[in-house]
């Protein structure tokens, strides 16, 4: 029996993350999900982007690929298509996976390569000092929106689902056990799975938005979380600023590799005829 600790590189602890950061909870949820499925370390690859969360593959005891800011899904696409035996999990921040890498996210969801993306959405760019990202809520304060943020933030799950991802779910670091389930389900679905983990960055986002310590941030997360089911009864006004947690979509759709298998078969036949 493997335990989650088999999937962690504990000798590299303590992590570089700040006390109270949500990243450690997501890391543990992933390691637990790996253990639940008994994944073979040799056949598992963690592809990470650049950012605080981008360090996560350093602490996972599987193959790791640490590339560039925003492009993790594209590296992962090549890895998975070249060796379909691999289980590929893609670790990205909200800046990484949804802002600079937003176009790759849309197309990865549409292309439906068998990958599991775990986006840790802490509502800002943690690593570079707390600037606003594509998910920063309108009106909130960051180091580059000192008078309140002008733009609206993305609903990442709606984006991934609209682009065609067959499995889309949202959890939060206030509910680590649930997050583990969502990641595990994502890993076991064939095709592109998208799991968003709403997280906390007390050092930057919390400090600038009147949530001075991690406890206050977690309380804020809990108070503003709603289940997707429960939210159906509420008006748009009541839903403002809430995080809707749960499974957004779970609907199988044939993945790229399976379809390309038919391309290979017909190309072979055409060659024989010619």
């Amino acid at each position: 029996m493997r335990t989650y600790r088999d999937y962690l590189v504990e000798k590299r602890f303590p992590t570089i993350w700040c006390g109270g950061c949500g990243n450690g909870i997501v890391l543990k949820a992933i390691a637990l999900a790996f253990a639940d499925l008994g994944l073979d370390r040799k056949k598992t690859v963690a592809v990470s982007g650049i950012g605080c969360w981008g360090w996560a593959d350093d602490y996972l005891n599987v193959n790791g690929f640490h590339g560039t800011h925003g492009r993790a899904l594209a590296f992962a696409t090549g890895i998975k298509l070249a060796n379909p035996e691999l289980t590929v999990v893609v670790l990205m921040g909200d800046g990484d996976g949804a802002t600079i890498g937003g176009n790759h996210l849309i197309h990865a969801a549409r292309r439906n390569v068998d990958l599991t993306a775990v986006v840790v959405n802490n509502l800002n760019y943690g690593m570079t000092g707390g600037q606003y990202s594509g998910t920063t809520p309108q009106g909130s304060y960051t180091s580059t929106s000192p008078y309140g943020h002008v733009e609206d933030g993305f609903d990442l799950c709606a984006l991934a689902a609209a682009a065609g991802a067959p499995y889309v779910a949202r959890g939060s670091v206030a509910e680590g056990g649930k997050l583990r389930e969502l990641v595990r389900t994502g890993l076991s679905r064939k095709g592109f799975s998208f799991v968003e983990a709403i997280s906390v960055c007390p050092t930057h986002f919390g400090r600038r938005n009147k949530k001075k310590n991690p406890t206050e941030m977690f309380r804020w997360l809990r108070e503003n979380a709603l289940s997707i089911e429960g939210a159906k009864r509420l008006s748009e006004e009541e839903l403002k600023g809430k995080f809707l947690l749960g499974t957004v979509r779970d609907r199988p759709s044939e993945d790229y590799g399976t379809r390309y298998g038919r391309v290979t078969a017909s190309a072979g036949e055409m060659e024989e005829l010619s």
Partner: protein
Amino acid sequence: MENKTWQFISGNEAIAEGAIAAGARFYAGYPITPSSEVAETAARRLPQVGGMYVQMEDELSSMAAIIGASVAGKRAFTATSGPGFSLMQENLGVAVMGEIPCVIVNVQRSGPSTGMATKPAQGDVMQARWGTHGDHGIVVLSPSSVEDCYYLTLCAFAIADRFRTPVVLLADAAIAKLKERASLHPVPEAERAMRPLPACPPDEYRPFAVDPEERVITPLAPFGGDYVYRITGSMHDDAGGQAASPANADQVIHHLTDKIEKNRSSIVQVREYDLDDAEIAVISFGCSARSARAAVREARRRGWSSSPSGPFPRMRSGTFSPTSAPPSSPS
């Protein structure tokens, strides 16, 4: 030689055929004039040989996908032109830093910017050499005939695998769009250069171990085998862990240049003509090498003793090789 298989094909098609003959089984790219026939040939031919074509959303992701495929054990390539080559530069650096073999075809067109999309140019030499940020070595090969397109692509994969480096095939619109008679020798599976694999026990594998003499380049283990490890575009120690000490950075950066520089003699290819009695040497590469050859012939006919030679004899690190060396080459 009777076993020659003469074909009348374009440079772009010859590049794709060369890649397949070299064992490439993965292509990721984004179409752009004047390189698109490489993609079209790859889309048609790769699935016939068990390979895969994927059209990405841009050149950033194309570059990333071939790097990913290479780490997972496939020979992989992409083709583009100026605007796309500019977009590839950041991830080209990942291949340099992570020491990941791959082949990037840049069919040069007139720039800057969108420039003149259908007009040939040779303006990307410095970008090929220095385009990605930071100190590094790189290999650049440049064909001057359709046959070169085929053979230099074979060479590009062999060099990429041997030295764990990205290799740029710097073609130009004139050669890539040109159709001419060329003999493309098939490469039997058994004669295909094999990508070296590590032989040490898995827990002893150091994917970024450096031989100070640069004679031995540590083989890259494909993901999915017995070797579980980490590959990174960040500064790393020999095991691939993040490492920021100045001494380590010094060693890694020297290695990235030295592994090319110290092996220059087995990388650089120069074709020389009529140099023995020459007083003036004409140095040229790519499509203009053919005009230079013709001009020198004409000059000699008129009684001057000058001679065109192959490319710049040397550029600091990297190599610049206008031609491979099949003697039948029509330049």
